[in-house]
């Protein structure tokens, strides 16, 4: 009886190993096309791609990450968009990362953007205070819930991409100064909130 149960477990284990390996090799459609849709230059804004630091490259590998510096009017912002299609583990809860890096979240509020909302954070570390905005976007809807992101990406992987588009994590931070005039960004560069 015990031997039979063990034999069934061996078979189950073999099936699990095969399925695990197979799932790694089945390609999942990524969000490259959406990332490429975001223009580098346009009326009222100009940007350039910024290479990732060694640490960032190590953390995000093998996910696709776009890091771009934009000048929008007088605002200079750094945009980081992470596509976890190839490795969802590269996409972390931004709040968790900020806390882990020693930042305290002083204020946190949702702001309306096209197709949903983004989260505007005021962060403090020692004497330094900065702002950051983040959201998850599947190209149509934007939200700030990491649980919803996990649910979307989990369903997507279990259904081999049939459940929808891969959500991107997008983070905006000011390059200079401490505040981000997101309302001006919304007006001057709406495409930033639409990809």
């Amino acid at each position, binding site marked *: 009886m015990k031997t039979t149960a063990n034999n069934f477990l*061996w078979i189950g284990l073999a099936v*699990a190993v095969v399925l*695990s390996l197979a*799932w790694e090799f089945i390609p999942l459609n990524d969000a490259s096309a959406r990332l490429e849709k975001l223009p580098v230059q346009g009326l009222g804004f100009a940007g350039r791609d910024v290479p990732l630091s060694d640490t960032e490259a190590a953390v995000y590998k093998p996910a696709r990450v776009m890091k771009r510096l934009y000048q929008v009017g007088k605002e200079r912002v750094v945009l980081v968009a992470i596509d976890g299609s190839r490795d969802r583990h590269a996409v972390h*809860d931004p709040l968790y990362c900020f806390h882990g890096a020693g930042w305290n*979240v002083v204020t946190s509020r949702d702001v309306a953007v096209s197709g949903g909302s983004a989260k505007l954070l005021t962060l403090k570390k020692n004497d330094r205070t900065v702002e950051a905005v983040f959201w998850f976007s599947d190209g149509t809807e934007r939200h700030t819930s990491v649980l919803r992101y996990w649910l979307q990406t989990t369903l997507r992987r279990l259904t081999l991409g049939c459940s929808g588009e891969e959500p991107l994590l997008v983070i905006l931070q000011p390059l200079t100064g401490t505040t981000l005039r997101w309302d001006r960004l919304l007006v001057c560069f709406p495409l930033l909130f639409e990809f």
Partner: protein
Amino acid sequence: MNGSRVEWAVVVFCVWHSVDLLTAWRYSPLDRWGWLAFVLWLAPLAWMRTGAGRWTALAWIALALALTSAMAQLNVLAYAALAVSLAALAPWSWRALPWLALSVAWMPVLGWACQSLPLNTVTVLRLTLAAASVVAGWRAFRK
């Protein structure tokens, strides 16, 4: 040590899918000392009764969780699978359930859930839960 070869093979399968634990313990400030919590949580297995009845269903549950984690790229399931696969090596009784639940002490999900607390508080909480798991395991597995 308890456990048939196939149950140990299931543990190895779960370890394979849990390798990101090492990265979390090493680099994430919210997960530091997680390795110590893991060692403490494992300790009760050292004094469990050998040859006592195990519950094969646990190995199947671990297998299902690990496979789902691999397909969905969801680490939290892989870590739960690892905990359950190790529990499958022990003589099972419902008294072991608190010990199994306290496996959260070494998991990154604890750091995530407590991220708004100061880092030191999270570490103290983690090690306190790990110490509680030693007591719970001792009560469940003592000879």
